[in-house]
């Protein structure tokens, strides 16, 4: 299945091929979880602080159980603490 990933700030270093700015299509096995998608992207889990699926917050403890569907939009933010 194909989902869309959007990686913010420093996480842009892990964008898959085909990215336009910080958005890229991403192929995943059907039924993949959010945690599996993050692992396949290669982003160190410690750097993923905010996970949104279709704009909805996915808590850290829910990442392994939250299944993605085709066309889902997965957005990942690192900690944003500057000011």
């Amino acid at each position, binding site marked *: 299945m194909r989902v869309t990933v959007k990686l*913010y*700030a*420093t996480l842009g270093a892990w964008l898959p091929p085909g990215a336009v*700015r*910080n958005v890229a299509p991403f192929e995943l096995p059907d039924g993949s979880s959010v945690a599996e998608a993050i692992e396949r992207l290669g982003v160190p889990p*410690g*750097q993923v*602080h*905010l996970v*949104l699926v279709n*704009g*909805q*917050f996915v*808590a*850290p403890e829910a990442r392994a159980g939250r299944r993605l569907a085709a066309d889902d939009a997965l*957005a990942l*933010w*690192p*900690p*944003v*603490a*500057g*000011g």
Partner: protein
Amino acid sequence: MNDDDLLRYSRQIMLPEIDIEGQERLCAAHVLLVGLGGLGSPAAMYLAAAGVGRLTLVDFDRVDLSNLQRQIIHRTADIGRPKVESARDALLALNPGVTVTTVPHALQDEALAEAVRGADVVVDATDNLATRFALNAACVRARRPLVIGAAIRLEGQVMVVRPDRPDGACYRCLYRGDGEPDETCSQSGVLAPVVGIIGAMQAVEVIKLITGAGDTLDGRLLLLDARDMEWQEVRVPKHAHCPVCGVPA
């Protein structure tokens, strides 16, 4: 309020959401503002201009040439001065009716707790997670509203923590881990107006908390991607076992 005050704040008093009652609340309010950098600069200036009666400014740092691109409360002539002193002078020049207290060092433990207890609203305009966590914990313990802003590169975040409300998420409900790698503006860069946007939004939320106007961003995280100029709102649920505001697992 005297005639000058009525004229100074007239454009705000004429708003039905503020009115004379809201303005009087602002004039009687005490805001603790931690961080006089990119976020704290616009937040402090708008709060002083809007007539918040007492501002306590906390920052251990001194003004550096590399700050001036975005920390708009400071001037070139202020380079080398403590940021809180530079900021105080700018705020009093803007509005001499405001009382400004300066704390030119970091606040920790009991000193931080006491400063938070003494404020009606706390503004997190700091630049690192460790300080943000400490401020969040102090606000949760003292049940003081906390207005959090953060920005880096072309991205920004705003959220309000309401520890006085039972179901309100805190900053630790959002960021769980310990010792996360920090990304600072000095290392990664930041576009000047992005901190301005976020800092100004923090001032809006503070004014609403004090006056009771509208709905604030309680447990709602606003995310700004200024590169594509997209805003996203994310509801942050309270984490039942949050180490700060939850019950132990």
